């Protein structure tokens, strides 16, 4: 095709030259041709130069240009800056003060919806992401993936140039070839053109898709990403007969039943839902209502850990249990179905009664991995209970282009196999890696003549493509997205693309022949059409407001009342026959479907159920592990779906027996330096019929063993029994005055409560409350160390709210420039996290209760670390904080040894990356980057305290409660962390410390008088289920 075109052109040029009269000079064949085709080629690829060319250039100026070009030729290797108007800083932009961060509202898209963020920018560098308090999906909080996205932005492994067959090329070359492909495609009305994108999150992109399909009516655009919500969508379709999105209001739900749904950890609204859930679970003195959570799950997740009653079942059995529950509730849609009864019928009966009792405030949820019928049953139960319209609201579909992704992909693969695809454009996905192996996508992919890939990384898919175009990160480009409730947000860039990446909008506009369009214009133009009746002035106002707020107020999708179908066909629900192992495939809690595999923060963040880092493992129940005679780290052969994998096992107390779990997203080969070779790729086990479950797999132990990097080696089940570390109390007993303290402390606590307290609310009083006998046990005169005219910072962590999601750990890492140490160092026990989330089990190995406990520095008043430092590198500050002076530290590690909470972290090597240029941009300039041989630890975000203090001083006022948030506090979706001035009796933290179930760690033993205290976890069990 190309060659014929070339010859044609040459013919044309010859003809052109022959037509000339007299002696003429031509610089190139193209110029000689001066055909419209050539001109358009030049205009497309060299717009600036073309404008010069088309100008009647005089000899003199021509020589000037040539001379300058030669002189500047050496600069060709520099990054070509986008040609946009720039202004010198001669007049400083308003509000830009060097050293003062600025915040811009934007949103992070993921899998069809987005979470609103406020990005902190230091002199043009985004360094930290916070949640946007106004955004319905964020409410001021974020999750670990959003927190870590800023590291992906600066990832030095990101793809930096256009690649053609793996060699560095230019965008111009790509566009040239693209043009010819599109021209021939246009001739066939797009018959051979296919676009495969991840779930479209952007309304603008959806509009561009429509435009593309208008232009190429026979082309198709398939959306697929491995962690899709097909089942939820199909479930709604099954129940209501039409597409709908669901959203939950947990702040109204008194009883929640989760059927394999990890709603606290995953899904478009999990941040907002965690907030709603925890609001309904605040355990405070005199608390009346507290929600009750029943969780049926196969894979231990955050939701199960929060549950008052948890049932570990094979994923297959949950289907029947859902039906049984519906029958027990007398849901009319299943009236005629055959009754199923299992070993858990008693449990089902009791739970059903509890749900019925709560009616409108009872909520039933189904997990994304459960088949559509379970979702439909859950919906039917909610409708029957009356919670539909209360706790559960249905709206129009929020995804801009709702589709059945798996069937779309199946169709695409069929087309590939049939050789019907001439050109395939892959937008941001990595289908070579993450599609079910038996679809044969990878096998047939190379049969497509033209394969182009837009992606942040030159990954497994771009390796198979002729063309790879680097994508712009969402912090680098314009776009838009909807929140889980439909609210529109404009995504605005914080920095110009570091590596000249293109946004999806620009890439698609290339397909539409508008390769020069800028994402800004595309998005803006789209919204100009969307904001109805807006003249340019009011549009500008609205646009600026949306950018400023990070959302367009009042654009959430209105609830619509849908009618449930009269009958549900439940005949497909099979009764789990048992036998063999089922394998559950789940998105990894941190690297997700694999797209974040090269993010060191996420890789090193301990996973909730296992505390594993840097690897996935085959999760197995203790009983099954005993049966197979395998232990942690032992490699097994896993056979299923016609493939065999070698994967290390990890025993997880509370895992359903007869079931195994393997997380997706690992075993990447072209993820980058960080992600390559981490873990095992589970996608080959995935089948085109069932993405989330392989019903029967064989497991065979091998002799091999692999060291997995786990941050909490010993589960310490037996050791905790007598240790007063986590306190758990039943709600009923709490109302009677019990606070979960062990028996030997109860007497002491009782006297403490009786003893009259001065109501000054001073810090020492608060501490006294927790450990009555210690207040006087100090060699120092307490009056010398009072903080009367100071702020006395303190923190309370509500174990009742904490879900264990670990977002605090990543937020802290981002805020405090905490380095990543790598798998080897983690397996040596040298992770650097300043706030860790400890996980403890209680109860039996098979059905344990899980408690998560975030542990930052306790900032002890009598700090054991301070006394032992020989050089005074860790000292008490004026405001009572336990400060670390990095410059003074020589690294004896005595402080870490003497810290009973083991929150101190040591730079055994030079962990901080001082060499990679792009990572330097990431650092928070307010926090020292620590060198080798230095101790570090949580500082209560002392840089934030200073900043607020300075601000308050300048304004001549006191620091207002709530004005100052630590990074961990700010990110927490459950608002489990309270921070503030304990001297202020009215402050939230002082009030929390006055709660009866406030307790401090080890204070009774060691008289450390920590400033960080905990609120005991409260359970709200159903008395009928308590044995």
């Amino acid at each position, binding site marked *: 095709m190309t060659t014929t075109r070339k010859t044609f052109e040459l013919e044309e040029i010859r003809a052109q030259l022959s037509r000339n009269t007299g002696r003429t000079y031509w610089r190139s064949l193209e110029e000689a041709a001066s055909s419209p085709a050539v001109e358009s080629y030049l205009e497309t690829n060299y717009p600036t130069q073309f404008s010069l060319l088309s100008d009647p250039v005089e000899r003199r100026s021509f020589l000037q240009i040539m001379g300058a070009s030669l002189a500047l030729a050496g600069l060709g290797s520099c990054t070509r800056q986008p040609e946009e108007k720039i202004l010198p800083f001669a007049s400083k932009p308003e509000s830009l003060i060097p050293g003062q961060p600025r915040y811009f509202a934007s949103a992070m898209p993921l899998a069809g919806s987005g979470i609103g963020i406020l990005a902190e920018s230091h002199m043009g560098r985004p360094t930290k992401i916070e949640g946007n308090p106004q955004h319905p999906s964020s409410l001021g909080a974020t999750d670990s993936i959003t927190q870590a996205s800023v590291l992906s932005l600066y990832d030095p492994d990101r793809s930096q140039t256009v690649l053609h067959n793996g060699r560095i090329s230019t965008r111009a070359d790509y566009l040239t070839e693209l043009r010819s492909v599109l021209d021939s495609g246009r001739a066939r009305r797009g018959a051979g053109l296919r676009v495969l994108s991840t779930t479209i999150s952007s309304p603008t992109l959806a509009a561009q898709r429509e435009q593309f399909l208008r232009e190429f009516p026979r082309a198709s655009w398939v959306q697929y990403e491995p962690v899709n919500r097909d089942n939820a969508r199909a479930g709604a379709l099954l129940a209501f007969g039409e597409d709908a999105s669901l959203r939950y209001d947990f702040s109204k739900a008194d009883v929640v039943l989760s059927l394999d749904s990890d709603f606290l950890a995953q899904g478009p609204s999990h941040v907002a839902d965690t907030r709603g859930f925890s609001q309904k679970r605040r355990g405070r003195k005199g608390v009346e209502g507290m929600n009750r959570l029943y969780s049926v799950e196969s894979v231990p997740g955050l939701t199960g850990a929060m549950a008052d009653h948890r049932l570990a079942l094979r994923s297959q059995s949950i289907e029947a249990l859902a039906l049984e529950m519906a029958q027990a509730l007398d849901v009319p849609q299943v009236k005629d179905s055959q009754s199923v009864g299992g070993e858990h019928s008693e449990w089902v009966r009791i739970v059903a009664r509890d749900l019925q009792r709560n009616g409108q405030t009872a909520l039933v949820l189904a997990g994304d991995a459960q088949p559509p019928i379970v979702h439909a049953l859950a919906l039917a139960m909610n409708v029957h209970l009356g919670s539909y319209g209360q706790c559960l609201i249905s709206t129009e579909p929020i995804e801009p282009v709702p589709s059945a992704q798996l069937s779309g992909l199946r169709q695409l693969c069929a087309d590939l196999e049939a050789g019907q695809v001439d050109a395939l454009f892959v937008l941001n996905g990595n289908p070579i890696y993450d599609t079910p192996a038996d679809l044969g996508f990878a096998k047939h992919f190379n049969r497509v003549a033209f394969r182009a890939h837009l992606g942040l990384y030159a990954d497994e898919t771009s390796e198979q493509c002729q063309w790879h175009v680097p994508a712009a990160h969402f912090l680098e480009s314009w776009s838009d997205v909807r929140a889980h409730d439909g609210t529109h947000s404009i995504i605005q860039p914080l920095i110009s693309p570091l590596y000249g990446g293109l946004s999806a909008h620009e890439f698609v506009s290339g397909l539409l022949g508008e390769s020069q369009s800028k994402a800004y214009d595309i998005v803006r133009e789209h919204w100009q059409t969307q904001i109805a009746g807006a003249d340019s002035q009011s549009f500008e106002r609205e646009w600026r407001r949306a950018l400023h707020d990070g959302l367009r107020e009042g654009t959430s999708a209105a609830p619509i009342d849908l009618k449930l179908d009269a009958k549900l066909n439940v005949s497909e629900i099979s009764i789990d026959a048992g036998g063999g192992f089922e394998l559950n495939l789940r998105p990894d809690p941190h690297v997700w479907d694999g797209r974040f595999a090269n993010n060191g923060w996420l890789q090193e963040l301990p996973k909730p159920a296992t505390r594993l880092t840097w690897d996935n493992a085959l999760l197995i129940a203790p009983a099954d592990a005993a049966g197979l005679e395998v232990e942690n780290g032992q490699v097994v052969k896993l056979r299923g779906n016609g493939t065999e994998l070698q994967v290390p096992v990890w025993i997880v107390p509370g895992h359903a027996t007869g079931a195994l779990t393997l997380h997706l997203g690992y075993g990447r080969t072209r993820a980058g330096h960080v992600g390559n070779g981490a873990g095992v790729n589970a996608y080959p086990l995935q089948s085109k019929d069932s993405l989330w479950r392989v019903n029967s797999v064989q497991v065979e132990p091998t002799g091999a063993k692999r060291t997995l990097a786990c941050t*909490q080696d010993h589960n310490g089940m037996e050791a905790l029994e007598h240790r007063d570390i986590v306190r758990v109390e039943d709600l009923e007993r709490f109302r009677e005055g019990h606070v979960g303290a062990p028996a030997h402390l109860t007497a002491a606590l009782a006297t403490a409560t009786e003893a009259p307290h001065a109501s000054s609310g001073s810090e020492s009083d608060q501490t006294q409350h927790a450990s009555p006998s210690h207040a006087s046990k100090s060699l120092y005169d307490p009056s010398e160390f009072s903080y009367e005219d100071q702020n006395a910072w303190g923190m309370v962590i509500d174990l009742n709210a904490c879900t264990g999601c670990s977002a605090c750990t990543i937020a802290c890492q981002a805020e405090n420039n905490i380095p990543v140490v790598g798998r080897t160092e983690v397996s040596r026990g040298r992770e650097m996290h300043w706030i860790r989330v400890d996980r403890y089990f209680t109860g039996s190995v098979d059905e344990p209760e899980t408690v998560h406990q975030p542990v930052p520095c306790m900032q002890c008043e009598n700090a054991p670390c301070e006394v032992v430092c020989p050089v005074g590198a860790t000292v008490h500050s004026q405001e009572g904080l336990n400060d670390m002076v990095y410059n003074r530290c020589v690294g004896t590690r005595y402080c870490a040894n003497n810290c009973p909470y083991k929150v101190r972290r040591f730079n055994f090597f030079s962990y901080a990356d001082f060499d990679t240029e792009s990572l330097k941009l990431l650092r928070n300039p307010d926090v020292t980057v620590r060198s080798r041989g230095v101790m570090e630890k949580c500082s209560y975000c002392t840089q934030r305290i200073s900043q607020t203090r300075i601000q308050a001083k300048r304004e001549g006022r006191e620091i207002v409660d709530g004005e100052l948030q630590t990074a961990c506090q700010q990110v927490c979706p459950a608002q489990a962390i309270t921070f503030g001035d304990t001297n202020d009796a009215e402050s939230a933290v002082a009030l929390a410390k006055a709660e009866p179930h406030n307790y401090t760690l080890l204070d009774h033993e060691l008289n450390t008088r920590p400033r960080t205290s905990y609120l005991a976890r409260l359970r709200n069990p159903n008395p009928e289920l308590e044995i």
Partner: protein
Amino acid sequence: MASDGPSQAAPQKPTEQPLPEDRLTKAIIREGHTLGSVTDKISDIVLTRKTPRGWYIGLGLSFCLVMLMLYSIGNLLVRGTGIWGLNAPVGWGFAIINFVWWVGIGHAGTLISAILLLLNQSWRTSINRFAEAMTLFAVACAGLFPLLHVGRPWLAYWLFPYPNTMALWPQFRSPLLWDVFAVSTYATVSLLFWYVGLIPDLATLRDSSRSRTKKVVYGILAMGWRNAARHWERYETAYLLLAGLAAPLVVSVHTVVSFDFAVAVIPGWHATIMPPYFVAGAVFSGFAMVVTLAIPLRKFYGLQDFITMRHLQNMAKVMLATGMIVSYGYLMEIFTAWYSGSEYELHMIANRMGGEYSVAFWSLITCNALVPQLLWSERVRTSLPLLFIIAIVINIGMWLERFIIVVTSLHNDYLPSSWDSYAGTFWDWSLYIGTIGFFLSLVFLFIRFLPMISISEMRMLVPAAEDPEPEQRLTEDSESSQGGGE
């Protein structure tokens, strides 16, 4: 003398017949020696005798280990503390274990020199010189570790209170700082004590040596000693004063070292038994090391006349006594943990006895508490091979003791979430073994270039000495030493 029964060795006029072995065991210098023979026998090793081939081999091997040590140190400085097996709960490992071990070994020298001198135990004379040298070398090895174990060794001088532009003092509440003072004082006093004791001998070497170089070097070192009565008078005074200064150090150094642990809040460290138990352990290991060195030395250099079985027996008795104190310490640790009723203390003891490092714990009990019980038997005490093996076993046991104290306390402390394991890496071992090589190299150099037994003091023990006073003193000494030893 007479009180010890018929088999005692009275320091009587030298007789021509060889004495039976059992009598020999009671003598502190073999009979028959004259002032000249003592001088010759000891100074010949340094001046005239051909250097034995074994010395070259021994020094060669030790020097290889010194190279290993230097390489390990270089690697440590270039790469960082991370090359060791340390981790988050176990912030101290081999470095501190070795430090305590070496400091402990360094205790015997001063104890023998100072305390036994003050107690008029004249049997100390033939072993004090090399015990003191050993002390210095052990302290040199020990001193390396605190320096190297810090994260930024190039800033370790910040632990010293020196005037600086930052106007910063060290933090005086920290036991590590007390360590700095204790160990540096100890090293200084030990060095002075050793050197002052050497002066008359250096003069002897100066006078006896034939080569010019030796004359000059020993001459300089002898500081103009002319054997004048005035010299002797001042020497005796200085020596006694230094002994007086050194005596409390014997107790203080290891007490302060034990504070590193006792002051901390970690179960297994935070115990009042620590100071006496550490001091006894130090003497225990120090004597074990002296025995370990004395047995081969007396054999290879034919010093059986000066280091007699009586010396070895006495040292064995000291080992037995201090071993009992140490065992009492172990029992008390267990008792206090149980008596405290604290779950953290109870777990610590249970974990030591039955946890991950229980093998090390029970080996330690075997080495330090059970094996030394053999020393009750005189037959064991007088058997050179057995005594040598027991001394080595005690050295190993004392290293294990420090390992148990440092590692098992840290690896399972308060919050089970932080628990982790610890194991030394190649670099941990290489530095440890390297310092043993360093120590041995210094010992080899010492026995080649300096009199390993005090000539002047030995001469005082010779019964034929013209001055009757030493003889008299010796008689009294023997009695009191035997009264105390048995």
